[in-house]
Every structure is written in structure tokens, then in C-alpha cells.
């Protein structure tokens, strides 16, 4: 609950203050690299609007392929990278990010403490938005079969069975199960929901080949029985499109996507008026939601002059200040910025925070495991091999990759 309280408290405090002052910086350079979704566009637009500096932004879906090389040069091409808790690790691993403690001390006293991301006590990033996957359901259909919105995946399966048996929708469950990153993400969710640990404590040795891993895979397979048979090709975009076409009644979906599902475009009133969100579900009798919490935040490059770092810090701080919030930008994300007013569509993400959902692991080798999961789970989902075989394939492939990267001997 704490985030929401902070936000509401801050709203009251700030609404009277002069937070909307224009941004002027003496001199320096700003160049942002980041993903291209609307919330980041807003941040970049406002940060680059600062006067007195050379400002540029490169927002692209390929940002992860460019950002490392673009920050390794000296001086670095990019002075700031916008990252999430999964992608920041790759840049920390290569030591291209500047610890921000001095700049926070000098210019950032007013940045709320909860926005600061610290690694080993050093501030490495400033978060500005949160995201999580949670339940999205069709109110009218659940009413028709007379059940409450499911709180666990087991309930969801029961509801799906009823919807199918009553002939309402043949494949009522949706999900971003595209082989690769998306499918791996669902495994991560479900495995955490089962209370699993990915590694032997304090090491990079993977430890998913256990009963929880098998239960995770079996639950994913059980869900896929109620999905469109093409589920292994459906990413979040395709799943959203299925939802808007009215082909799906229950799904685990990103909070950042729900705004799009509930607006009047691309769908019929029957669908968008009945689209509801709810908390992430638990699984297997566990009390931790089978979901992960995410943040997006900005960083400052290490290989740039102090002056440029300072300019970047100030501009990015402005780009993520309450000055950027207006009617249009308010709904783009669950902002962690003072002055943000949550809408009903964001209830899912807030529930995820309240339920103390596990944040996506910020570990140096998690990216390797994620890739390997994405490559191997599809074989099991198609019934080509057993769960045990899949898990041992994952272990073997991860071990080979981790050896190459120097995490294992």
C-alpha cells in the first residue's frame, strides 16, 4: 500500500507548489537511448525540451542492442539509458553506468526515496513507472457463468472449463505465450508463484529442475489447453488483439496494456465495456502472486564529463517530474511520480504492489536463464518431451551459456 499512500500524500502537497517551472540548464549534453512506448516518449520529449543543452533521443525497439556499445565509447554517445529491472543488469555488468549518489545529493534531494534504485548501496537508476502482469477478465461472461473473478489459477481453470462447456467461448483463456521472451516470462511468473528459487543461494548455479519446476510447467500446459491452438505465436500484441476481437474472456496481461483494451477503439462496446482488471492470481496454494513487479527508470552514463552528467541528471529529473503529467500522459503508465492519480484501469498493478509480488530478479545471470527458458519450454508445451526432460535441457543449456560468460567454472 505504501506507494499509493506516498503518491496521494504527495499529490496534495505538490498541487500548490510551483512544480511546473520550465527547465533551463546552463550547458551540457543529453542523449537518451530507450524503448519506444508512449510513456518513454513522454519522458524523452520533456527531458529534451530543456533549454541550454544539446539534447537528442533515440527511442527504438532495438535499444538493447545499441545501448551497451553506445555507452562504452569515451565519451559515450548516449548520456542516459532508460531501462527496466531486467535490462539494467547488462549495463551494470559491463560497468558503464555512473553511480548517482553525488548528483542526488547535489540536485536530487526532492526525488522521493522510493524512486531510487540502489545496488550495493549505490544509486544506479531513478525509477519513474511501475508495471506488472495481472488478471484481466470479461465481467459479462463471468456473470453469465455465475463465478467471481478468479483469485487463483486453479479457479481460473475451473471458470475456463465452465465457459467452454456452456459453449460461450471455445478457447476462453489468453496469454502472451509466444516462444521466446514471453513464454519465459510466464514461466518466471508461475515458478515464483509456486515459491520456487531459480538459483542455489548466493551462486549462479541454476536450480529449477525440481518439483516446483514440474508443477509450473504442468500448470502452463493446463492453461494452454484452454487457449487458441496458435498460442505459441501470440505475443502481447496478438493476445491484446484476440481480446479486442472478443475471443478471450480471461488472461494474465501487462498493466501497461489494459488502457488500450478498455478504450473504445478497435473493439465492440460489448467487449470494452466489460473488460475488468483484478489482482494477479496465486497458484498451487501459495500466497505469493504468480507475477513479477517491474520498474522503468533512467540512468546516467559513466564515460561522460561531469558537466554532461550533471546536465543529463537535471534534464532527466525534469523529464520525470510532475510537470509532465497532464490528461493525455496520465493514463500512459502507472507513474511513480508525485502528482499521479491512479485510474481504475491501474488497479491491477496496484494490487500487485499491495500483495508484495516479487520484483523481477535483478541478477547478473538472469538474462541468460530467461533466454534459455524461452528456447526450451516450447518443446514441452507442444508435447514433444516430458517436463523433466525440458527442465534438464534448460539446466544444461544455461550451464553452457553461464560458463561462457564466466559465471560458472
Amino acid at each position, binding site marked *: 500500500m505504501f506507494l499509493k499512500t506516498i503518491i496521494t500524500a504527495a499529490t496534495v502537497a505538490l498541487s500548490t507548489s510551483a512544480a511546473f517551472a520550465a527547465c533551463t540548464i546552463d550547458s551540457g549534453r543529453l542523449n537518451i537511448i530507450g524503448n519506444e512506448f508512449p510513456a518513454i516518449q513522454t519522458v524523452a520529449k520533456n527531458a529534451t525540451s530543456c533549454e541550454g543543452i544539446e539534447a537528442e533521443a533515440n527511442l527504438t525497439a532495438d535499444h538493447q542492442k545499441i545501448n551497451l556499445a553506445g555507452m562504452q565509447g569515451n565519451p559515450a554517445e548516449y548520456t542516459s539509458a532508460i531501462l527496466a529491472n531486467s535490462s539494467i543488469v547488462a549495463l551494470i555488468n559491463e*560497468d558503464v553506468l555512473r553511480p548517482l549518489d553525488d548528483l542526488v545529493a547535489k540536485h536530487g534531494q526532492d526525488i522521493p526515496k*522510493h524512486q531510487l534504485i540502489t545496488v550495493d548501496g549505490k544509486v544506479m537508476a531513478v525509477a519513474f513507472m511501475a508495471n506488472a502482469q495481472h488478471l484481466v477478465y470479461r465481467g459479462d461472461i463471468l456473470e453469465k457463468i455465475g463465478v467471481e473473478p478468479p483469485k487463483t489459477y486453479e479457479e481460473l481453470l475451473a471458470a475456463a472449463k465452465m465457459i467452454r462447456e456452456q459453449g460461450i467461448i471455445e478457447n476462453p483463456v489468453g496469454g502472451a505465450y*509466444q516462444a521466446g521472451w514471453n513464454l519465459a516470462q510466464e514461466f518466471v511468473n508461475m515458478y515464483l508463484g509456486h515459491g520456487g528459487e531459480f538459483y542455489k543461494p548466493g551462486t549462479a548455479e541454476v536450480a529449477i529442475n525440481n518439483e516446483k519446476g514440474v508443477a509450473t510447467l504442468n500448470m502452463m500446459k493446463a492453461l494452454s489447453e484452454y487457449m487458441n491452438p*496458435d498460442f*505459441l505465436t501470440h505475443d502481447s500484441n496478438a493476445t491484446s488483439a484476440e481480446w479486442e476481437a472478443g475471443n478471450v474472456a480471461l488472461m494474465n496481461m501487462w498493466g501497461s496494456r489494459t488502457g488500450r483494451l478498455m478504450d473504445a477503439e478497435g473493439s465492440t462496446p460489448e467487449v470494452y465495456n466489460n473488460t475488468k482488471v483484478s489482482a494477479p492470481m496465486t497458484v498451487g496454494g501459495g500466497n505469493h502472486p504468480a507475477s513479477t513487479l517491474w520498474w522503468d527508470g533512467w540512468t546516467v552514463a559513466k564515460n561522460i564529463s561531469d558537466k554532461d552528467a550533471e546536465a543529463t541528471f537535471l534534464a532527466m529529473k525534469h523529464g520525470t517530474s510532475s510537470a509532465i503529467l497532464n490528461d493525455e500522459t496520465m493514463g500512459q503508465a502507472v507513474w511513480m511520480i508525485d502528482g499521479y492519480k491512479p485510474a481504475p484501469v491501474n488497479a491491477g498493478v496496484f494490487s500487485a504492489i499491495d500483495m508484495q509480488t516479487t520484483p523481477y530478479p535483478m541478477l547478473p545471470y538472469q538474462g541468460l536463464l530467461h533466454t534459455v527458458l524461452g*528456447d526450451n519450454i516450447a518443446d514441452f*508445451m507442444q508435447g514433444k518431451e516430458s517436463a523433466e526432460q525440458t527442465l534438464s535441457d534448460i539446466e544444461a543449456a544455461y550451464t*553452457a551459456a553461464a560458463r*561462457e560468460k*564466466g559465471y560458472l567454472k
Partner: protein
Amino acid sequence: MKHKAFFLFVLPSSVAMLLFIFFPIISVVVQSFYVSHEQVIVTVENCGPFGCKQATAIDQEATAALREAEPLGKFAGLATYRDRNHLAVDAVGSAWEKADNWRDFGAQMLNLPFYKALGFTLTFTFVVTPLVIIFGFVIAVAVNSAASAIRGPLIFFSLLPMMITPLIGSLILFWMVDARGIIGSALQYLAGNPDLSVKASTPLMWIMLMVYGVWHAAPFAFIVYYAGLQTVNKDTLEASRIDGANRWEQIRYVIIPHLLPLTTFIALMQLMDNFRVFEPIVSFAANAHATSLSWAIYNDLGGETRQLSSAAATSVLTIIGVAILLSPVLVRTWRDFGRK
């Protein structure tokens, strides 16, 4: 041709290729023999908007010293090539010992990522390449026989499959072959099976990727052949007709031999391009059913942690694969060369 003249003529090309292809290849080959340093991992406390958590991180100071000492990383020789994600020497060995029969051995091999990718890559190459050549030739002959007034539009439409950026082209086709798309619906109707879905079935996905491959590359063969047909010696053609050659014989004995050098060229380029098949797999989200060597490289480089050595090793293996694949054609070119 004199050595000096030859050298001057090829100089611009050579410089461009040396700088932008040869040196990168060398660096990739070197990279593939190295792996990262052993990472010094420490336990730290990470804090963020969702609270604090014990986690591990790389000890930058300790690692910096290692980096300084050996900037390329740790020399590993062929270790990356031999590991499970590439040639998997040990896994293949144990599969060989344990397997009861060929079928079992094959199944175990296809469970290894490299051999799985190689399986699809080779199938794709050997199915698509000949079909592209045949279709391209047939279309070129047909277009060349059409009235010259409509040839312009014919050429334009023939180029479209290769022209529309695969980003959108495959997005549209991906929708069309969906179970509810226009082609998908037509297939269900033709097969009389309302549950048929191309995207859910491995064999159908393979077929679709290959059909796409042929569709996408046929214009290439077509246009090369079409240009070649323009240079067919009309006197020879005339002479053969006077000698009583029928239409098929003219094609068989005059046109096909004339187009042979072009066929060698198309075969070389197509074998290589098809061996590097990549875009359709990503665009059709087909990686659950089919992977290729280039896809494996993309996957190594596109993850949150980039596996440079692994990608480098797969790249080198791809080049070796292409060299082996092209060797019959090259031997032919070599003989041609001798004849000159």
C-alpha cells in the same frame, strides 16, 4: 589481363570489403576462441520501489583488474564450439553410446539446439533453392513471351514479393494464414477440417516457411533470368528453328545452356541466402517449431545478456557450413575458369 590492370580494377571493391567484411570476420573468429573472464560475484543488497532484497552482483573492482590484464577475455580454444549449445561433442558422444537405434539417436540429436537448427536450415536450403530456380525460370520465360506492352506491369508485380519490406509483408501473411485469416480459412475449407491451424503444427509451419521462402526469392531468380534472356543470341535461335528444333528443343539446347552461368550465380546466392534463413522465422514467430543457425545468432545477441562468443562461434560455423554447401558449385566454377 595484366596484373597491374587487374589490381587497379578491383582496388575499390577490395578496400570496401576488407574494411567492412574481412576485418570484422577476423575479429569474430578471434572472439569465438575467447570467453568472458571468471566473474567475481558478491552478495549485495538491492533496493528499489518495491523494497530491498539480497541479490548478487558482479564485483566491478575485482573484475576491472582482470579486464585490464586480458582485454579479450579468457582464451578458451575450441571450448565454445564444443559446448552443448554448439557442436555438443560430449552430448553427441553419449547419445551415440546410449541410443538403441538410429531413430533414438536422431531424436536425441534434434534435442540439441545446434543440430535442431541445422536440421531445419538444411531442409529449407535444399527444398527452397531448386524451387526458386525452377519457378524463376518458368516465370522469366513466360514474361518474356508476353506482349511487350504489358511486360512493365508484369515485371513490377513480379517484383512485389521481394519488394515489400518483410516487416510488413510477413505481418500481413502472418495474419492471412491465421486460422481466421483469409488463407487459413481457405485451407480449412479445402482440407475440410475446421480446426486446422498452420501456426499450431510443426509440419505445416515448416511448409509455410518454405512456401514463403520460394515466394519471396522467386522474383530474384526471375529478374536475373529475364535479363539473361534478353541477351540470347537471336541468330542461334533462328538457326535452330530452321534446323527444325521445336519450342522445347530451343529452350533445352539454346536457352538453357546460355543461361547456365546465371544459374550458377543464382544457385550460389540462393544456397547462401537460404542457409542464412532468419527473417521469416522471426516474423512468423515460428521459433517454437523451427530454428535456424542465423536465428540462433540473433537469439544470442538479442537477449538481455548478450552472448558474444556464442554468437561468434555460430557465425563461424555458418561460414564453414556455407563453404561446404557451395563446394560443388565452386568446383564447377573452377573448371569453367580453367577452360577460359
